[in-house]
């Protein structure tokens, strides 16, 4: 147990998995440090779920190895410090969230304050009702609470907010950020870029079974120092040609590595812009740009 202090929550190298003729995952390397959140991104069928299953120890890799705080993935020591969401469709109908939470807590040997958890995950009125008849969003809240009930040091979240309403999504993001801020490690998959962006500080992009990009979001931002400049123009006016701006509904926008220079020139030339905004690139556009750079290199 002492060694776990110095080990990363996740260090996986060369993970490979084949299903018949299909190589679902090929030599995937991943690392997650304490107090960090990794977003696993990729199109459907890219190998995210297979990778997650191997990290959780539910599936044995054909090659490579995954270690959780230095212990083999799926080993008792690894499972003791890991939490995960069940797929929201799979609860036995006959039990209440309180009963499932108590069950999971007992498996961890934890004694959580179930009422506080119910509050935090929006289960207040649902906590003693049997889950039969719960909506998808209500099931999802139970699933999220279950991932955290054992006070784990590492949490796996597969599509954590699918089916949640906007308030519940925001509440969950708050919880996830607080967990990471307190030193917890998090791995999440999502199809929603804004969710990954709101929670993760590192990402791994998986495509056709391979990690095509893996690193800190800040590092990507530093590499592609690009911001998006957008503004409105009076009817009939066009932006100067040097900008290469494109029209997007009522506004014009351009992406630039040197927004200061672009802005100065716009002012000097007396361009009649209005309602100007300057924003960093969204994660999705940032990743697209970094990938483009890598393939052109």
């Amino acid at each position, binding site marked *: 147990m002492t060694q776990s202090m110095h080990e990363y929550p996740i260090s996986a190298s060369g993970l490979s998995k084949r299903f018949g003729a299909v190589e679902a995952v090929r030599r995937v390397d991943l690392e997650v440090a304490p107090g960090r959140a990794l977003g696993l991104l990729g199109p459907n069928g890219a190998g995210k779920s297979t990778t997650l299953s191997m990290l959780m120890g539910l*599936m044995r890799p054909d090659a490579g190895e995954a270690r959780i705080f230095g212990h083999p993935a799926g080993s008792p020591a690894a499972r003791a410090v890991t939490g995960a969401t069940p*797929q929201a469709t799979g609860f*036995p109908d*006959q039990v209440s969230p309180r009963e499932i939470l*108590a069950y999971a807590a007992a498996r961890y040997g934890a004694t959580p304050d179930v009422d506080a958890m119910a509050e935090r995950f929006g289960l207040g009125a649902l906590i003693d009702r049997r889950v039969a008849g719960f909506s998808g969003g209500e099931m999802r809240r139970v699933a999220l609470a279950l991932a955290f009930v054992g006070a784990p040091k590492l949490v796996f979240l597969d599509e954590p907010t699918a089916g949640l309403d906007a308030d519940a999504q925001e509440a969950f993001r708050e919880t996830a950020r607080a967990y990471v801020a307190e030193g917890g490690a998090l791995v999440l998959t999502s199809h929603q870029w804004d969710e990954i962006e709101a929670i993760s500080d590192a990402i791994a992009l998986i495509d056709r079974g391979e990690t095509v990009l893996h690193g800190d979001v800040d590092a990507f931002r530093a590499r592609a120092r690009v911001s998006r400049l957008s503004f409105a123009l009076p009817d009939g006016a066009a932006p100067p040609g040097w900008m290469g701006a494109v029209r997007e509904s009522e506004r014009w926008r351009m992406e630039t590595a040197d927004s200061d220079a672009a802005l100065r020139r716009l002012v000097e030339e007396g361009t009649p812009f209005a309602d100007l905004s300057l924003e960093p690139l969204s994660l999705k556009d940032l990743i697209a740009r970094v990938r483009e750079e890598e393939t052109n290199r």
Partner: protein
Amino acid sequence: MTSPNAMGALKAECALTLRILFRQPAFWVPTVLFPAMLYAFFGAQSGGGQWAANAMASFIVYAAVGVGFYLFGVSIAQDRVSPFATWQRSLPGRFVDQWIARIVAALIFVVIAAALVAVMALVMTDVSLNAAAWVRLSVVCLLSAVAATLMGIALGSLVSASASVAIANLIYLPLAYLGGLWVPPFAMPEVIAAISEWTPTRAMGELAWAAVEARAWEVDHLILLLAWALAAGALAAAAQRRTRPA
């Protein structure tokens, strides 16, 4: 590793399993009534005195095998592929707890089912046993239930969910017949009688008949039953290891 912690986890496992089952009366009511009904139709008519006692013992073993093997063992094939079971495998704790919980649940339902057979026998026939015979019969019933549940778990761990029920039928019904639970062993054709000697159901039957006839148990039958239970446990453990990397 075996600490208050581990006991708490086992208790939680049993509580969850029993809650889920008991809250499905549509599942457990027919389950516990079935052997008594079958006994009323086919067992209670087999005469009086020792005949009646032996028939009751046979149907009590049949109840133990049916409920244990079928409903608590083989059903693991369906449960194993559910997303909830997948998540359970990601939790800390010993895997064997889930088997223990299944066996505990099976024992509870077997006791109810067997008690109903006994009540039916007392009402419909002139069966009368002394306390020692009832105790010994109960012991056989519980042993049989544990062995049958383990055999069911082994089968359920080996085959796919869709194949499990069909294969279970192919094993369970012949085993009941071969064990002499429906037709007494001496009335069997020679070849069948020879095979019968090696079946777990025959061992259960012999132990149960010895109990109601106030004869001593033969060690051979106890060993045969134990061997089947151990083999089933080993097979289930091996099947389990396939799906679990560590």
